[in-house]
């Protein structure tokens, strides 16, 4: 009897909590819109001075290109813009946010320009349409030729506001071009504009890399009869040979702290990976194998180096720990894996794999999992390199008969050609933020 009683009590007690009403719990595990609706108005002339619509047009074109590449946005069609788009008002209170909200936009770019005495001033604002807040405001002053640079710089700022990390659009890309008939080193903007020839060796220049700390490049050149490693200061143009050992001095890559250079030397009749000081002295030999070892790429922490070796038969990617010199194999699929590039974020290693004579770009995690093919279709895509923020990859693609430099997002989407025809352009490298 007693147990019966207690049992009843227990049951009642157990039931009690269920009879209390809760608020409804909901889980929303993905946004309904996976892009940010953004409205971008045309720059309007500010104050006195003649209107120069060409400035607004160029600015808009450059900024749109960068924002499109970012993949973050869904641009609101300017044809739908209402009255507020034609008003210069850049202050929060001057803006009719409801107009923009009606168009479905969540973010708004407004701006104006002024030209005085050959200098251009561009004022820019990024607003949150929903909360009606100013997200970022910038004023840029420069030469008339700086409009593109200003647009890239503001694009970086927009990404900073909306993702927490600055964009890479105001940086530079180094590459090798054969426009003159010889392979020479060039620099260009991230969208392929302003190509500048950096060397005139009239020989073969290959495989550049940017110093992470100085405005300086290293590359390999045959100009002295041997593939030697050169260093070049970008602004002074000063150039010197950094490593001129007999045999190969190729594939130089600055360590993340800029203090050492990993490269391939074959001074002992076989290609091995070495570490050099920035004065060219050998610090350390990292590999010791009779097979081919080339193409070093530093992990962002600077403690490991991915490289290519055919020590197991076919070219594959391996990783060597620069302290213990332990070597682990990274790639197992495919018959020809080369040109590793470690993401500056550290999570992935991009590389190119040849299949049926055609290279495509892949990524893989450091532990060998999660291999993904990023590029498909015609054209051999080689030499992937990361943007300094790890958002994008550049690579060479021989689609259409000659090589050119292409850019895409790190997930393989948004691929587009950036270098102009006629250069047979290859071996891209992305500078740190400029």
């Amino acid at each position, binding site marked *: 009897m007693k147990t019966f009683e207690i049992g*009843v009590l227990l049951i009642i007690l157990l039931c009690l909590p269920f009879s209390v009403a809760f608020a409804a719990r909901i889980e929303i595990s993905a946004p309904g819109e996976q892009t940010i609706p953004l409205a971008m108005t045309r720059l309007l002339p500010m104050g006195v001075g003649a209107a120069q619509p060409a400035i607004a047009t160029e600015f808009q074109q450059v900024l749109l290109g960068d924002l499109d590449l970012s993949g973050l946005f869904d641009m609101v069609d300017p044809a739908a813009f209402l009255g507020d788009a034609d008003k210069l008002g850049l202050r929060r209170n001057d803006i009719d946010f409801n107009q923009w909200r009606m168009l479905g936009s969540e973010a708004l770019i407004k701006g104006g320009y002024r030209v005085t005495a050959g200098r251009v001033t561009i004022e820019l604002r990024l607003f949150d349409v929903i909360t009606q807040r100013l997200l970022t405001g910038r004023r840029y002053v420069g030469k008339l030729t700086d409009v593109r640079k200003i647009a890239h710089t503001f694009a970086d700022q927009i990404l900073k506001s909306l993702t927490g990390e600055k964009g890479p659009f105001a940086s530079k890309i180094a590459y090798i071009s054969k426009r003159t008939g010889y392979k020479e080193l060039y620099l260009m903007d991230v969208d392929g504009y302003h190509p500048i020839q950096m060397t005139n060796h009239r020989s073969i220049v290959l495989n550049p890399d940017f110093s992470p700390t100085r405005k300086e490049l290293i590359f390999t050149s045959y100009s002295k009869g041997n593939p030697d490693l050169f260093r070049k200061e970008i602004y002074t143009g000063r150039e010197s040979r950094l490593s001129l050992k007999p045999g190969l001095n190729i594939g130089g890559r600055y360590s993340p702290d800029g203090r050492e250079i990993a490269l391939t030397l074959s001074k002992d009749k076989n290609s091995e990976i070495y570490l050099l000081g920035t004065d060219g002295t050998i610090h350390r030999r990292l590999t010791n194998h009779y097979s081919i070892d080339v193409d070093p790429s530093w992990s962002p922490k600077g403690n490991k180096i991915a490289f290519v070796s055919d020590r197991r038969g076919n070219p594959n990617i391996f990783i060597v720990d620069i302290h213990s010199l332990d070597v682990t194999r990274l790639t197992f699929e495919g018959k020809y894996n080369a040109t590793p590039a470690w993401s500056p974020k550290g999570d992935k290693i991009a590389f190119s794999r040849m299949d049926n004579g055609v290279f495509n770009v892949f990524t893989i995690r450091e532990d060998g999992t999660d291999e993904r093919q990023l590029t498909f279709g015609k054209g051999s895509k080689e030499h992937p390199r990361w943007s300094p923020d790890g958002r994008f990859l550049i690579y060479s693609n021989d689609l259409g008969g000659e090589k050119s430099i292409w850019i895409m997002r790190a997930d393989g989407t948004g691929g587009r050609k950036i270098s102009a025809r006629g250069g047979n352009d290859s071996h891209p490298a992305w500078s740190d933020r400029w």
Partner: protein
Amino acid sequence: MESSRKQRWQQLQSVFEPGFKQMLLISVLLHLLVPILYYTPLFPKHEIEKPPVYRVNLVNKIVKNPQAGRPEAAPVKQKPAVKPKPKPEPKPAVKPKPVPIPPKPKPVPVKPKPEPKPIPPKPKPEPKPEPVKPKPEPKSAPKPAPVKKKPQPKPAVSKAQESALEARLKKMRAAQKQKASEQARKDKLAALRAAAIAESSNIESPTTDAPVGMMDGKGDQAGVSAVAFVQEFIQKQWSFSKYQAAGSPEAEVKLFYNAHGTLLHYKFLKKSGNSVFDESLIRAITKSRQLSQPLPESMEFHIIFNLKDMLDKS
């Protein structure tokens, strides 16, 4: 102590002697009923823990007791008028309509509505005659493979139906004996198969044919649940790009809506720590200040925002 208790118990027994135990039992049962009832659609509590992954058509009405149906179905169908009223007889008439819907989710076995099914079983017996053997078991009958699983899904067949089937079977067998022509039977078989296939494709018909309701709806109102509606509404207002994502952020927000569907206040119970993510939620909530339809009552929602489904896909 012991003894005093016993004494009291005896005292009580003496007082309530006759039906006390029964009463106690009823009381217990009644208490048990509370939580059970709580989870039935009779109590449209806002307690649905795991919102299923269906999409909700936001033009659908929000109701307290959504019927079985599809939340994304268009409310074009004015059938509701035709169907629901015949409430008086709960089992037979009403059910037929919802039946075609359930193909996707679990067909809510709760209801013995499978009336429409009995029709397919009938054809089955016919093919069986082939084996000439008098099979007592109707279940094994559906062997005729050609007739897709369609018949099988109807395990909801009741005893009565079974016996009915058996009776029919007997009739059939008798009839079959009369049938001399094998050819005729074959023709019939083919026809049956065709019919079965046709019917099966019918059942798997697209959502346009489905009534507006919830897949797990057990009520009788055409419409969708408030939770499903709010989930869909706020999700639609939320813009966030995978290129903004860093890690796997998760935040929890409490929102309080009045019966007009107006947001009275909200509060972050847990921020994600990722300001870009949290700001996108503020935008989504700000855009959801007014729902497009009133709620059945004022309600509070705890919404967990994360990117599980988006990041998985990439």
